[in-house]
């Protein structure tokens, strides 16, 4: 009984952590491309989820609809970068932040106008009846949750491989490291910046439709997740895809265990736990757990 309870909380923590890590992964893509922290990342993913929802409503099978949402997301990321971010110029941290907040509000309102404020039921990609789960030490891991974890593993592996082993990935990393110098070796820096946004929004568009069946789809889909996502990206060091995922899992698991075993915290102070972890880590290691320290000899 004790063990079953522990396992249940652990599994829940891992699933939540996977979601945080997934969103953090999208944030890392934008950051790597253009050193921007896209606070509207969650809302953009939410919009893609609504897009996929509309496709399913027109009879498109759910997996294809998600694919459609990902393409929509990629296009959305490209358009937003080209029209709203690039004109701000380089080294425009604060203007970008403000634009992202504007995007957050604008997209949220837009989705509300088009799809209304009522929560909608989004179809799952795998059977999702009450008894569609695997038992792990008495804990239940639902098939749909397994899909989230699997999709995260695939996405992070793919991104890692692109960054590490392809010319394109090398060009993106060079751009993030030293844009002035990247221009001089012939890298099209503005294209790399766009690509970061395209990748990020595509990643977000995979996540949204996978969590929507359990949370229901509404304009509030990512309200809390984005806070955790930013926390995970920060904890992971903001420029490491794998760091983002590991940090997401650490936050998810710790907050669930602490919330269940420390009496006075409970569900109501859960988010505080995540933020306290973040605070402590940043005090000890300001670059996050996996961030590249600015190594430079002068």
């Amino acid at each position, binding site marked *: 009984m004790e063990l079953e309870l522990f396992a249940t909380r652990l599994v829940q923590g891992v699933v939540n952590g996977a979601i945080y890590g997934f969103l953090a992964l999208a944030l890392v893509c934008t950051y790597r491309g253009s050193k921007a922290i896209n606070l509207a990342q969650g809302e953009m993913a939410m919009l893609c989820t609504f897009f996929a929802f509309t496709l399913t409503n027109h009879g498109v099978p759910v997996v294809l609809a998600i694919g459609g949402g990902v393409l929509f997301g990629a296009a959305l990321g490209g358009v937003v970068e080209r029209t709203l971010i690039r004109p701000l110029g380089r080294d425009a941290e604060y203007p970008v932040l403000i634009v992202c907040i504007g995007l957050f509000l604008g997209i949220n309102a837009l989705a509300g106008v088009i799809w209304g404020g009522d929560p909608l039921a989004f179809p799952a990609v795998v059977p999702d009846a009450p008894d569609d789960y695997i038992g792990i030490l008495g804990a239940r891991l639902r098939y749909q949750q397994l899909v989230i974890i699997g999709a995260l593993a695939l996405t992070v592996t793919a991104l890692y491989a692109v960054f590490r082993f392809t010319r394109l990935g090398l060009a993106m*990393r060079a751009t993030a490291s030293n844009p002035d110098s990247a221009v001089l070796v012939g*890298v099209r820096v503005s294209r790399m910046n766009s690509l970061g946004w395209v990748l990020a929004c595509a990643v977000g568009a995979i996540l949204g439709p996978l969590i929507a069946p359990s949370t229901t789809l509404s304009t509030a889909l990512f309200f809390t997740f984005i806070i955790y996502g930013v926390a995970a990206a920060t904890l992971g060091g903001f420029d490491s895809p794998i760091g983002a995922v590991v940090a997401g899992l650490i936050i998810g698991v710790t907050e669930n265990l602490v919330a269940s075993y420390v009496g006075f915290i409970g569900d109501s102070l859960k988010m505080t736990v995540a933020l306290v972890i973040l605070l402590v880590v940043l005090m000890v290691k300001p670059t996050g757990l996996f961030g590249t320290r600015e190594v430079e000899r002068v």
Partner: protein
Amino acid sequence: MNLEVHDVSAGYGAGDVLHQVSLDVHEREIVVMLGANGAGKTTLMRAISGAIGRRGKILLDGVDISRAGADEIVRRGLAQVPQGRGTFVDLTVEENLRVGALSRRDPAGVKSDIDRWFSTYPRLAERRRVKAGLLSGGEQQMLAVSRAMMSRPRLLLCDEPSLGLSPKLVGELFASLEAINKEWDMGMLIVEQNAAIALSIATRGYLLEVGSITRSGDAAQLSDSDAVRAAYLGY
């Protein structure tokens, strides 16, 4: 490769830093551009390599590149060793070299060029998997030169390569540039404040003052001119 610059003006935002600068670098020639801080040397380099907007005419082997983007200019055979070395600090030494070759499409050639530069600079080979930001200034300058050479350029621009190096390293660096010039039959335009050493390997030179060329001539002529001697040679 021939470089001709005709009446080029360029700057940032409000005003021009360069005013109708003209110069040329012939095939296999080392040309030095002398100038004090703020004379517009780096702006000139950036204008030639397409990193900033510019007016006027720039010809590479007769082809007008004054409207071309930086990526096209690299592909046409011009490479730059930027001021401050332009190291990609959180990439490894070897990755820095691969970045230099991003404009190329011959993986086998890139690989053999990497080995070639590692044998030229064994110090870099020893540290190939180290993050480039951890290299010393001299090592980073070697890396910057080899990174620029990785694009197989036919003309090399060097922006104040001696900056921040000890006299001994400056000597080694210029010897190395001269060797590259001979071995690869490659033209170079070197921007410098260290006039003595730059003039010692150059055939010709220009003097850039407040954004305009005020003097030009053979390296020997320039070394003898009073203006250059007073301002840059200190005797």
